[in-house]
């Protein structure tokens, strides 16, 4: 203690203290958040007369490195895609999750690498290997005439526990998370329910019927498009952000007001007058 005390007035001491604090905080934060490894993305290209052939070529360039030459999977690296179906491919590649850029706890949504027709080609190829759920049609995913009341009930009972009541997303274990539903298209929502990507459970069409799924889609899309009549939404995650705003907005504003109200003029504060200044 005396060592610090004796040197605390040296000019560089302040800089050293700040530097130490920054390093300590940075190391602490780095220790608790996940750090990912990396593998580079492979660009896809190719053309062929039939969609499946095109898909096979795209697959070979962009997917086979992890999923295996015949989509059989590689243990510890990537699962088998035999039986995964076109819907799964359309979802994963359409949301940009695949091709995977780096192995984190979870594949995040990012800008898709392929065009939609390329995605359909890959999907057709994967479907040809072992079947699986097909890409739903536009009519299947349309929310026209859907029952949002039932959708609300189903969403709250089966989806809200991960994705939050407004679709803001939520934490899972081991650094995984249920993503926010703000960007998913109708078809992607349907496909996610149908195929159960990563940690998400599978809600097949005989458990949650296509009609049920349409109701859920209608509820989700209507909720996220809805205006916030009370003001800014504060993230739609509930009392946590509300409390932050109450303290940082409300109390801060009123403390500043209180400081202004009770501020003394300079003479009253310091006892200086024109005479002794």
């Amino acid at each position, binding site marked *: 203690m005396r060592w610090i005390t004796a040197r605390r007035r040296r000019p560089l001491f302040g800089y050293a203290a700040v530097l130490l604090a920054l390093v300590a905080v940075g190391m602490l934060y780095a220790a608790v958040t996940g750090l990912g490894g990396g593998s580079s993305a492979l660009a896809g290209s190719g053309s062929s007369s039939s969609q499946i052939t095109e898909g096979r070529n795209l697959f070979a360039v962009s997917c086979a490195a992890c999923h295996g030459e015949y989509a059989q999977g590689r243990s510890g690296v990537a699962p088998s895609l035999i039986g995964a179906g076109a819907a799964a491919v359309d979802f994963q590649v359409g949301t940009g999750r695949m091709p995977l850029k780096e192995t984190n706890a979870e594949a995040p949504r990012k800008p898709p690498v392929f065009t939609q027709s390329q995605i359909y080609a890959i999907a057709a190829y994967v479907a040809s290997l072992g079947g699986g759920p097909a890409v739903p049609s536009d009519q299947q995913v349309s929310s026209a005439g859907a029952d949002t009341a*039932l959708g609300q*009930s*189903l969403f709250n*009972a*089966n989806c809200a*526990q*991960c994705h939050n009541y407004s679709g803001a997303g*939520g934490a*899972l*274990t*081991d650094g*995984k998370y249920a993503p926010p539903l703000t960007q998913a298209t109708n078809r992607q929502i349907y496909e996610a329910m149908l195929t*159960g990507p*990563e*940690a*998400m*459970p*599978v*809600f*097949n069409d*005989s*458990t*949650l*019927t296509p009609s*049920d799924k349409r109701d859920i889609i209608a509820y989700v899309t209507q909720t996220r498009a*809805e*205006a*916030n*009549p*009370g*003001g800014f939404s504060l993230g739609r995650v509930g009392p946590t952000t509300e409390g932050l705003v109450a303290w940082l907005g409300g109390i801060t504003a009123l403390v500043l*007001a209180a400081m*202004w*109200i009770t*501020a003394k*003029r300079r*003479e*009253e504060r310091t*006892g200086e*007058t*024109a*005479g002794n200044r």
Partner: protein
Amino acid sequence: MSDNDRDLEGTPEERSAPHRVIGTPPPARGLLTEPGPGESSGGGQRGTEPYGPGEAEAPELHEMPSDPPDPKAARNWERVAAALFLISLLASVGFVAAYVSLEIGNNNGDVVVATLRSNLALGSAMSLAMLAIGVGMVIWVRYIMPPVELTEERHPMASSPEDRAAFAETIIEGAETSQITKRPLLRRTLIAATVPVALAPLVILRDMGPLPGTSLRNTVWKKGMRLLVYGSNQPITPADFNSPGGMITVVPDGYQDNDQELAKATAIIIRMEPGQLQAPTNLNWTVDNIVAYSKICTHVGCPAALYEQTTHRILCPCHQSTFDATRGATVMFGPAPRPLPQLPITTDAQGYLVAQSDFHEPVGPSFWERG
């Protein structure tokens, strides 16, 4: 001498007047400081006596200046404050106008947008009206009223020994006159009566609710009762629920709208891959790799609904209790003390999933009688 007397002494060197004992009226005080150019602050009478009676015998008059030191600046600030008060007036009028003209409710297009407009208009008007008055008043008191600092003496907190003695005497006198100290029969029976008269009526709170009995030990599930998918209220067969990694919320047939029973009976069914289910999961209670667990968390009763297909974890989002669905929902992390009870299921003649019986243990949070 009580403690209090010592508190009355200031440091000897501070006192400029003779030390006053409480009870003697002090000389008049009233300290006015008016910091202006050239004037010294502080008057001659510092009033350093500690506690005087607080009010002079002759009331002080003329303690505050009537006008601010700089009339020109005060006039300018007056204009600012006046403008703010007028703004507030207009805002209040605007509030009424917004209320009258902006309709909400379902005959006005998008109700959410209509409500947004109304809230925005009413709220902005109200905020402006309130804040403008507030700011104007602060300008008034800080820049238009002359600065003033007054000193008020404090009373002694403790009463004088004479007052205390008189108080004690009154109490004793009254106690003696009331005879209560001299008549133990009267006193004791009175005490014996007052406690029950206060407590006996509490018994009428008994009918606030039924006794728990054994109601927390059982749910409505019984043999042959179908599992319905919550929401669509349809029964389900293993052939329907055939995707590994599938999970859905199920409720007992006949109780789908009964929140009270659902608060105990709600369950989830999960479809596993073959071979994934292990002890202590009771495989006799499963059908076709489909296992049913209570959805009510054993911590404090939130629905433990979050299912991670890849890790087979059932996570309760309230306090992060985690259960391993492949191993009888044993607790892996978190404050839950016991696994989620497993619901024995089988299929009925039509192939729909039904319960074999009720849960074999009480569901939900722990309670004293659970054992």
